[in-house]
């Protein structure tokens, strides 16, 4: 069975929000739209987004990391939001594992949002239905798009390619390999939701320099003749003993 998912590489995410607004512009015009905004030019502007980039600080100065953390629907393999939906509007597709909301069935009771530990569902205050990431289901199967562009808008946009996309049930896929080889993990594993989206941790490249690497025979100072040499007249053992 296919389970499409995103794998987010925190090792390269610089927190630029490209995925946030690319998602917004695609989906406000796509079948998942619209994504309304309120008070866009007034006090306290707010709106519906499927994807947000957050910032966390880990550690204490100076051993502190800034972690940019994009978050959208994780398309759980056991999505708690689906069984609680009273109308069946919230569903998980058998064929590719995408969790979707059927706006025509949604009654806007918000119970699915309560049942999601990750806070990735947002009610559209104007359409009055629950909305969420669709993994750009209207892009990824669109035959009008070139094969290479049949990916979620956020994946296409991401300048650091921190967003990998593919089938995590296919062990040979880019995402499966990344999860396997780079320690991909799921969020809040304690609830057994088995999120399909995974995150790749920070990886640190270090460099160790041995002392002898600083004292090499090919030191150019030798050519330039300025390695410090004592003056011949300075005291030496020759002056003090005859053995």
């Amino acid at each position, binding site marked *: 069975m296919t389970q499409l998912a995103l794998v987010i590489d925190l090792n390269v995410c610089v927190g630029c929000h490209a995925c946030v607004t690319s998602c917004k512009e695609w989906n406000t015009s796509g079948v998942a739209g619209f994504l309304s905004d309120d008070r866009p030019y007034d006090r306290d502007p*707010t709106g519906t987004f499927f994807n947000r980039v957050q910032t966390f600080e*880990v550690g204490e100065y100076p051993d502190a990391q800034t972690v940019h953390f994009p978050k959208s629907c994780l398309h759980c393999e056991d999505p708690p939001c689906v069984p*609680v939906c*009273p109308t069946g509007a919230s569903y998980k597709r058998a064929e590719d594992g995408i969790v979707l909301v059927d706006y025509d*069935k949604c009654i806007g009771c918000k119970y699915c949002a309560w049942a999601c530990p990750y806070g990735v569902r947002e009610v559209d205050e104007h359409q009055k239905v629950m909305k969420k990431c669709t993994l750009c289901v209207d892009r990824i199967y669109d035959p009008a798009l070139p094969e290479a562009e049949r990916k979620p808008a956020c994946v296409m946009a991401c300048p650091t390619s921190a967003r990998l996309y593919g089938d995590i049930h296919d062990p040979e896929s880019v995402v499966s390999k990344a999860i396997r080889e780079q320690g991909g993990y799921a969020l809040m594993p304690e*609830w057994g939701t088995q999120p399909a989206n995974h995150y790749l941790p920070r990886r640190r490249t270090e460099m160790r320099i041995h002392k002898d690497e600083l004292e090499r025979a090919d030191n150019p100072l030798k050519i330039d003749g300025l390695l410090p040499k004592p003056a011949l007249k300075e005291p030496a053992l020759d002056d003090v003993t005859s053995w």
Partner: protein
Amino acid sequence: MNPAFSVIFLTTLIGVGQGLFLALYAAELGSAFELVPPQDSRSFFALGAALALGFLAAGLAASFFHLGRPERAWRAAARWRTSWLSREVIVLPAFMAAVLCYGAAHYLGLPATLMTGAVASVLCLALFVCTGMIYACIKFLQEWATPLTVVNYLLLGCASGFAFATPMAAATGNGLVVPLAAGAVMLSLAAWATRAAALARNRRIKPKSTVQTAIGIKHPRIAQKAQGFMCGSFNTREFFHGRGGQAMSLVKWGFIVLAFPAPVALIAAGTALASVPLLSAAFITQYLGLIAERWYFFAQANHPQNLYYQAIS
């Protein structure tokens, strides 16, 4: 969670309706076994059933205010196999129909009121379970994920229903005041005990989710600096009530006093003095207490999604 008044009224009003029906049916059963004096079908049972229906209908009406698209509410019956909410949506009207039949049977003097009442009672209890399980089944809302949630819905509903039935009995001048008052007092005391148990339990809850599990980084010191937007979203409006510890404490002590000792005392006094106003005051006090209780029930639930929405910058 940010308490929604539509849901607060839904759950408290149907609770009263359910408790009231159970009080009626208990009275009928009691009289069948000659434990309490029999009552008039019309002036007591039919009226009571009508009032219970009124509470249920009011609760149902309140629930519509919670929906974004109330015109589609009928769709909510579709997923009864998996969703406690869907089950509630089926059981609530079924129970209302049963109460209607029960009341109508009494009103029209038809037989089989006991059978009808039995069916309604089963539906009533099922409704308590559905309502409670809507909350108790969300395992990561740890404050709710306990059998105590169902027990509390049951006992609080029953207590408030009996507390309503008592002045009703007193007003219609029948002999059920004392047994109903006793029931109301006992149920209130029981509810007090189980609600207190839930409070005690919740005080000791250690959240399973932490910011560490939320973002998958193992470090003792992690702090959010930006949640990705600055002026609020559904996530901040739906899951944060924004009240400080002092307000929470005030509501908690308010409901503990209003829902339990105050009505118990008023019922005792009202029964002793045979005062309908005092008994009515007991119900009103308890109902206000239950509104506070329900507000607190929602507000106290700390949704793990909140870990993602701690700071703006």
